[in-house]
């Protein structure tokens, strides 16, 4: 199929459907898109062409001798373009020796008439016609086509009307660029305040303009008028207002939908305020919206065809779309796209794309979260699965002889074992340690060789690159690689032959100094698949845990004893080495933030994230240390071999000003936090421990984490060597190498390492490595995806929290009342952390009617008229009656948890302080029980109720009940295992767990 230029311009979204394949884009058409539609759409087209899944090609017809047609005298541009494209299509038809019929799709009626029957085998038809004839079943495409047509018609009508303008026009691009250069305007990214989306938005300065203008803080954009049609995430150009117009940001807590007028608080001191004069780059994506309910539709009145829909994301303004299906779509979450935003209209115009699911339905809500984070997780396609090796009981996968020859064989020589959490399926990393003939030690880290199975630019590679990471939601996960790889052939399970990429060090026998290092491909057979607890038992000398290790079960007593000793020695030695390496890093002024780091490392291994501050097992630390060592050495190696195109991971040092809140809080408790360097910070955090209240230390640590920036991937060609530093780990170079099953960055690093090895051997580098520019783009993509993964995880957790509390009656249910700690003070309320559920939220001290909280002698709280006084570390509420109550930082209070339901947005948790005394549970001892249980309980419970609801429905439909029961049971069981795996991920607050 050959689309005409007009079709490419208007229906690109439909052409993007994965079903539509084998499209030939003519250069003429692409250039019109580039010139008339701007960079955004052109980039979309480019991505479409690059994506191997679509089988689309670009034909440079203007550069081809037989296809080029000079423009004739008096011929309009459009006519010439259509003629060129037709001519190229005819040429291509003849080029294929008239065997392959070609369809040219155009919107030009004249062209259809003129060329329709000119050449046999080249059909010229309209786009609508094309869809009807070739894709009658592709309903989504038809709907999309209709909605595009409609919105276009609307737009045409509107431009004729053109009434009074709502917004100032954007300035032309040249003026903006000149303005930025001269310092008159400032360029930045627009961030809308989630809690006051109508009024407040901030512009974070970008790059050069930051230094020139001498501004430190962000620029406030106050109100929709000043925001001038820009949407959250756009790159905008801002003009600063004069100083007397500067406004302050509001520090008070408020609910999303409340009116701003209600808050009479005097705003804090003025900050730079500006208005948007132009948008450099629009960052529109797909938005999930909800249609107004019936009552609201009528109130919108006269124009029933145009409907204002409310996006799920608070930061996005309402979108006006025109559709006839409004009524049918009322109870659904729907995806829409924004088409344009004229200066004459208050809201942007958009069109309807597809339906996700019912409001309040678990699947629908999860789909919403995925779309909002631009995560697309379709099942792996057939073409992708065809590339996968086969491993079935009938046809088992075997080590091939060629590979056996090329790889170092460690199967007989090394004792290799893995330590992972219980029930882990995808084992990326194994360890080995042994004594060499010369007395030195040999430490090995063996990582699954994913790149062997995933050749560059294969379908599966492209898919993995798009996904970039495995997504973990509260109740499920979306794998980056198909399970045949992730859980089977790449997973270094016990007792089977597997390919690996190894880093092997030779260490001095006493000083553990690294003497030699070897990198390369190997074959291994993991002897034991241990889990952490068992390994720790063995390390501590408790051998009764041996019974849990399946590998020992079938052995007789003697060989069992011998093998056990061997294993215990290896684990012991490993721990010893890890301790030394760590101590060495410590001496170099290194490793700080111990608590944070350990926790994150554990997170990466899907291990238990402890909300209760208990000491992590030493084995965790040992494994983590070995992985850090491997990552560090690989980073060094690939950087040496490819100084400009290696993928590393940096962690920039944090800004000191972000630590001010942390210091203030610590001061309230009498601690001093020294944030000058990573070492001092870690030391002072260690000291800031309140023996009576372990939560204080955890809160301080999480605040410290929040103040830091995230670690990021980058390409070494794109920044100076000093910036490679990893602040958290205090290493000069670091990368991710040890989890290629879960992260695409590791796959890239593996390929780089392989290339580096063949470069050392003076062999030709087989794979095409990414150039610096491509790698930079890839890093940006991976970083984005990681952020999306974190957000979606957090949002899905919140979703589950809400679903859990939704069915509970907050007045009576015992579970809805819990103990909370105040960790931040605002003018009209406090922020509370609930350790038991891991919830952070706001609690108001003044309610909507202006009444303030007061606590009587029995410490029960009531609402009474009065006033609030906010201090640095406490807030006092005084009633008119003279009673007063004060809340300090780190005070324990009793809160009631309830859910605030919302139709258009996600439900939110609401906290209400019901007593200023700590909440004492009847079973105090249980307080020390891991809250993890509760978390996974929570997820389980929600999933179960959802399943039950499903079941009930299904029964109604009168399907054979037994079968379904069975089906549900099996499903329940597999879910259970899944939950077990990810229970650590259930309720942690993702915003403050940053990855190393």
């Amino acid at each position, binding site marked *: 199929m050959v689309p005409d230029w007009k079709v490419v311009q208007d229906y690109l979204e439909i052409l993007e459907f994965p079903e539509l394949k084998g499209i030939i884009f003519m250069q003429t058409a692409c250039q019109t898109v*580039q*010139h*008339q539609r*701007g*960079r955004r759409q*052109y980039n979309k087209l*480019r991505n479409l*062409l*690059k994506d191997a899944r679509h089988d689309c090609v*670009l034909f*440079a017809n*203007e*550069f081809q001798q037989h296809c080029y047609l000079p423009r004739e005298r008096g011929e309009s541009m459009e006519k010439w373009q259509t003629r060129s494209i037709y001519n190229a299509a005819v040429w291509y038809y003849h080029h294929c020796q008239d065997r392959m019929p070609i369809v040219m799709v155009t919107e030009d009626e004249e062209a259809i008439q003129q060329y329709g029957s000119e050449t046999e085998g080249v059909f010229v038809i309209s786009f609508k016609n094309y869809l009807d004839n070739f894709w009658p079943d592709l309903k989504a495409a038809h709907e999309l086509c209709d909605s595009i047509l409609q919105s276009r018609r609307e737009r045409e009508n509107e431009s004729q009307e053109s009434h009074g303008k709502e917004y100032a026009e954007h300035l032309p691009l040249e003026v903006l660029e000149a303005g930025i250069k001269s310092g008159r305007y400032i360029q930045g990214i627009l961030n809308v305040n989630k809690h006051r989306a109508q009024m407040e938005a901030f512009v974070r300065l970008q790059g050069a303009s930051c230094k020139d203008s001498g501004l430190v803080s962000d620029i406030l954009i106050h109100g929709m008028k000043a925001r001038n049609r820009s949407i959250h995430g756009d790159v905008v150009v801002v003009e600063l207002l004069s100083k007397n117009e500067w406004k302050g940001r509001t520090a008070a807590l408020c609910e999303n939908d409340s009116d701003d007028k209600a808050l009479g608080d005097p705003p804090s001191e003025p900050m730079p305020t500006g208005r948007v004069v132009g948008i450099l780059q629009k960052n529109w994506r797909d938005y999930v919206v909800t249609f107004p309910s019936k009552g609201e539709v009528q109130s919108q009145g006269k124009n029933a065809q145009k409907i204002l829909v409310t996006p799920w994301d608070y930061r996005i303004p309402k979108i006006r779309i025109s559709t006839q299906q409004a009524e049918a779509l009322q109870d659904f979450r729907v995806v829409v796209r924004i088409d344009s935003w004229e200066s004459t209209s208050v809201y942007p115009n958009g069109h309807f794309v597809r339906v996700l699911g019912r409001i309040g339905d678990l699947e629908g809500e999860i789909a919403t979260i995925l779309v909002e984070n631009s995560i697309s997780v379709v099942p792996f396609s057939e073409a992708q699965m065809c590339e996968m090796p086969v491993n079935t009981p009938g046809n088992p996968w075997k080590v091939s002889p060629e590979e056996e020859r090329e790889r170092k064989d460690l199967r007989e020589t090394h004792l290799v074992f893995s330590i992972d959490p219980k029930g882990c399926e995808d084992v990326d990393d194994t360890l080995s340690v042994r004594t060499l003939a010369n007395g030195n030690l040999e430490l090995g880290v063996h990582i699954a060789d994913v790149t062997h199975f995933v050749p560059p630019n294969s379908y599966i590679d492209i898919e993995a690159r798009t996904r970039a990471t495995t997504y973990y939601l509260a109740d499920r996960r979306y794998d980056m690689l198909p399970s045949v790889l992730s859980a089977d052939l790449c997973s270094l399970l016990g007792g089977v032959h597997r390919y690996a990429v190894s880093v092997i060090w030779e260490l001095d026998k006493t000083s553990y100094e690294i003497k030699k290092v070897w990198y390369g491909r190997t074959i291994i057979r993991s002897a034991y698949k241990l889990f952490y607890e068992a390994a720790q038992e063995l390390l501590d000398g408790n051998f009764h845990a041996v019974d849990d290790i399946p590998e020992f079960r079938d052995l007789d007593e003697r060989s069992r004893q011998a093998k056990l000793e061997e294993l215990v020695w290896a684990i012991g030695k490993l721990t010893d080495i890890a301790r030394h390496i760590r101590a060495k890093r410590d001496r170099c002024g290194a490793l700080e933030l111990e608590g944070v780091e350990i926790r994150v490392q554990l997170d990466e291994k899907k291990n238990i994230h402890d909300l209760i501050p208990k000491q992590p097992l030493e084995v965790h630390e040992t494994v983590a240390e070995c992985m850090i060592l491997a990552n560090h050495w690989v980073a060094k190696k690939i950087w040496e071999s490819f100084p*400009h195109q290696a993928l590393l991971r940096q962690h920039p040092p944090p800004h000191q000003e972000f630590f001010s809140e942390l210091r203030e809080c610590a001061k309230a408790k009498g601690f001093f936090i020294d944030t000058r360097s990573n070492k001092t910070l870690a030391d002072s955090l260690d000291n800031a421990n309140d023996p009576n209240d372990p939560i204080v230390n955890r809160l301080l640590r999480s605040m410290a984490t929040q103040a830091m920036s995230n670690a990021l991937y980058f390409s070494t060609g794109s920044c100076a060597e000093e910036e490679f530093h990893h602040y958290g780990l205090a290493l000069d170079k670091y990368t991710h190498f040890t989890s290629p099953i879960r992260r695409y960055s590791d796959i890239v690093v593996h390929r780089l390492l392989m290339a580096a090895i063949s470069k050392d051997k003076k062999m030709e580098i087989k794979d095409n490595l990414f*150039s*610096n*520019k491509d790698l930079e783009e890839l890093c940006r993509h991976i970083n984005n995806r990681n952020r999306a993964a974190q957000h979606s995880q957090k949002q899905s957790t919140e979703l589950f929290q809400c679903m859990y509390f939704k069915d509970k009656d907050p007045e009576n249910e015992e579970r809805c009342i819990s103990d909370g700690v105040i960790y931040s003070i605002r003018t009209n309320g406090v922020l509370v952390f609930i350790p038991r559920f891991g919830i952070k939220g706001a609690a108001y001290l003044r309610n909507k009617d202006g009444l303030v909280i007061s606590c009587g002698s029995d410490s029960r709280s009531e609402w009474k008229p009065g006033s609030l006084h906010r201090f640095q570390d406490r807030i006092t509420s005084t009633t008119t009656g003279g009673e007063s109550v004060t809340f300090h930082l780190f005070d324990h209070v009793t809160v009631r948890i309830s859910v605030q339901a919302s139709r258009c947005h996600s439900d939110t948790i609401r906290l209400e302080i019901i007593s200023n005394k700590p909440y004492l549970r009847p079973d105090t001892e249980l307080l020390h029980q891991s809250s993890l249980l509760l978390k996974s309980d929570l997820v389980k419970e929600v999933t179960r109720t959802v399943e039950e609801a499903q079941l009930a429905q299904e029964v109604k439909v009168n399907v054979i009940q037994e079968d379904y029961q069975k089906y549900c049971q099996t499903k329940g069981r597999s879910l259970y295992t899944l939950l077990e795996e990810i229970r650590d991920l259930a309720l942690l607050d993702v915003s403050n767990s940053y990855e190393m």
Partner: protein
Amino acid sequence: MAGLELLSDQGYRVDGRRAGELRKIQARMGVFAQADGSAYIEQGNTKALAVVYGPHEIRGSRARALPDRALVNCQYSSATFSTGERKRRPHGDRKSCEMGLQLRQTFEAAILTQLHPRSQIDIYVQVLQADGGTYAACVNAATLAVLDAGIPMRDFVCACSAGFVDSTALADLSHVEEAAGGPQLALALLPASGQIALLEMDARLHEDHLEQVLEAAAQAARDVHTLLDHVVRQHVCEASVLLGD
């Protein structure tokens, strides 16, 4: 409008060339009867005319004469209508002085000047249409003119420009590509020996990429040499037919 894409994903440049491709080169020698040597060259839309007089006695001040070799005098001028913007360029403006100097350096390196001590060789170059790579066109035209004049040279001097876009080196830049503002390099090469007569670049380019760009320019210069060689041979053929050998 989106910014111009100098190198598309498919590897085409704006005018449909590949990265290492030259523009079409057409040349003629002996276009003027009264001069000792003359040549006309077209590289794409860049057109240049070169005229050579000499070697002859020093004109003007005798003091300029060099005792051991010939003086090479180069003058560059460009027609008022040569660029998109019509502009009178008087003799002796900065740009043409600099270009003259560069040409002089180039040809002092190539002509066997020590064979004609105390004499002078004049090379006049005029650009009729400038569409990128004027220096290269001037050098190539002047080479042909010097050959036409029968002045002994070490070798052809072949020049070509090269630029750097999207980590790819582009040979023989057109005006559009030059105007985009990327780094640009001009190279004059003695192809047989591979010696560089002149290398000029005034933009910032990372040293790691220099080799790549230099190689692209050198390859293009060698290609130019093949073409010029062809032109010279054909010219000699024609001349010998006319002479009736």
